[in-house]
């Protein structure tokens, strides 16, 4: 859902501003360390997690981070679940710093390298092991003695 909205927002911007986008395609230089602090200070973390790993909002990092035009346009223009951050609250430089931070978040370990994750599996449940009738509870709706 959120991605299709994002795509919609970007498509609209493309229609409206056409070739101007090409000029913006390159992200301005930013400072990742500063960006990390700003990411927390202005509240990005609340929905996306301190590492940009996602939560209520989608994952932003680790990469590939969305292209700068898509990213910056979305932050400035979104009017959906996530309201926009205007330049009044987040300068262009600060946004660039956040972008630098997200781009710099190191890749996560591959799930295959995490034993805890690798051993998750199976489509069926555990057999009931108890001697008691399992689960042995009377019912909300069904007959009771």
């Amino acid at each position, binding site marked *: 859902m959120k991605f299709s909205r994002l795509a919609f927002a970007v498509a609209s911007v493309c229609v409206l501003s056409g070739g101007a986008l090409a000029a913006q395609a390159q992200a301005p230089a930013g400072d990742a360390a500063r960006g990390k602090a700003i990411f927390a200070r202005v509240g990005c973390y609340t929905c996306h*997690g301190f590492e940009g790993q996602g939560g209520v909002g989608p994952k932003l990092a680790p990469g590939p981070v969305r292209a700068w035009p898509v990213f910056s346009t979305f932050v400035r223009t979104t009017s959906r679940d996530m309201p926009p951050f205007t330049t009044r609250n*987040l300068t262009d430089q600060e946004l660039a710093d956040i972008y630098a931070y997200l781009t710099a978040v190191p890749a996560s370990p591959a799930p295959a390298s995490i034993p805890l994750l*690798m051993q998750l*599996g199976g489509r069926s449940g555990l057999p009931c092991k108890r001697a008691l009738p399992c689960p042995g509870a009377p019912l909300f*709706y069904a007959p009771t003695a």
Partner: protein
Amino acid sequence: MSGSDKQPRIERRQFLKGAAAAGPALAAASLVSPQAAQAAQTPAGAAAPATMAVREQHPPGTGQPLAPGYVVGGDHMTDCLRALDIEYVASCPGSTFRGFQESIINYGGNKKPEFLTALHEDSSVHFAMGYAKITGKPMAAMIHGVVGVQHASMAIYNAFGDQVPVYIIAGNLLSEWGRRPGAEAAHSSTDQAQMVRDYIKWDEQPTTLRDFSNAAARCYEAAVSGAPGPVMLTADADMQEEAIHEDHKADLRLPKIGRRIPASADSGTVQELATMLCNAENPVLSLDRYGNNDKSIPLMVELAEALQAPVIDTRGRMNFPNRHPLNVSDIGGPYLRNADVVLAVEPRDLFGMVMALDDEDVRTPRPRIGQNTKVVRLGISHTSQKPNYGGSQRYAPADLDIQADAQGTMPALIEAVKRMAKPNFAARGERIANQTKNLLERAKAEAAYGWDASPISTARLCAEIWDQIKNEEYTVPTETNFLSSWPQRLWVMDKYYNFLGRSGGWGVGYNSAAAIGAALANKPHGRVTVALAGDGDFMMAPGVIWTAAHHQIPILFVIHNNRGYHQETMHLQRMANRRNRAVTTADIGTTIKDPNMDFAMMAKSMGVYSEGPVSNPVDLRPAIQRALAVVKRGEPAVLDIVAQPR
């Protein structure tokens, strides 16, 4: 009133006072029969052994008149609870039920029902919720007159919203004449159930002891019938404490609970529904308050497999195995949009199932279903709705509304569907299985993001816990949406008791307390109860872990400590952004830090094993291991985990 000729009721207070002081005794005696006056002068202590002996000869639940030998009203009330098979009375004590409490303890021997000491009335009711979700039967919550009801009211609201039977007994001193000034007058009322009547199913305030069992039975029946819910029985303090007149003992009966058969749909309706489902190209099953017992899930699996239809579990209960190939809960959007028939099973909120309303400036509903989707509602979960509070929003009609118990209807529906099953169902099932087969892989990949982060990622926290309970029978009695539903995404959940749904009224404080009630119910089954409670939720009722320690209720109690009411931080952030004002202030009034809570110390102060704060993910495994060892010894253990917000 209690001296009326018509009512077999004795003026207890006047008796007792009369026994103690000659003056008032004269006035009192004129109101009652000579036999009663005589009975009142028998010291209660002397009569008690006879009472116990007689009770043994007359097991409750037989519907027989009570045998002679009872001394006070509270004894009869105690027998009524026993006849209703109520095992526990969760309670924060209050003098408006002292007579009842003493009877439960000394007359009943504090066994079935047994007192469960709560440190807040809200917790008492929430304990009962968690217990009922496991056992399917009500626990009593005994609450003090007026103030206890006020404290309990939010939990009562949760129970009503969540359709969980809770048997609330409230004390009161009905007679204005006899109320002492001060607390006794302040804790009495004419109609205290009025405070919560909008969200209980039934209430009674019997005015004679003879009426008590009648009222007790009717309340019980209301609590467990149809869509279950909380009820309130007000027990008059005079009545609890009064001596029972010898002549009136024969009038007292114990409530008798017969078998209950839920209403299932008739065969014609079942046939019509089966035809709709079998003729549909893209039927979808959407489940809400369905999975309440051990038969619910196997039946739903059978139906889904007979149809080879996708299933969306909205997690109002544990409704469908999370790893079943037909479970599309996390990718349900397209299935709903393309559905020609949606079977909504026990939906509390049909609107929410078929429409979305996002938190935007202009709230435009977004249909989740297609224009031509036919919606069939099967269930009774909407039938306990009341006006005024909760549940009412935009109205969503069903094309076909089958007001029958869904589980009761399931066997006939399964048979009918099997008779009409078509060969092309298999291909549909295969398509769905293809789309769900990578969900776990996807979840693993997503869980890896922020794997080593500190604060600890919620995915890591849940994966670490699962690793150590995966060979146990277990229950997660707490909501999981604030943990990004990681248990549903990573664990194997396929028993109705693996997950207990939500609070019902979204009232914070539910999780921590309901978890204790669930753990109590799980104890005889040897299941591990794993509470995953928010720090904000826990601080609404921290005393619940003392109750667990006191009553030796084993539970692994994990605090998801994001140092705040994070849900509200996000709301404030959204407001500030929307208004284009300072976006750096969302922590004001929403975070719980400076100073940070020390939950481990708090737990220790209540005699509970604890560890934390744990903020380094590598420390998780040993901490969980040690805590689980304590739980396996039959005790509670608390872990304070400093974690990511969601």
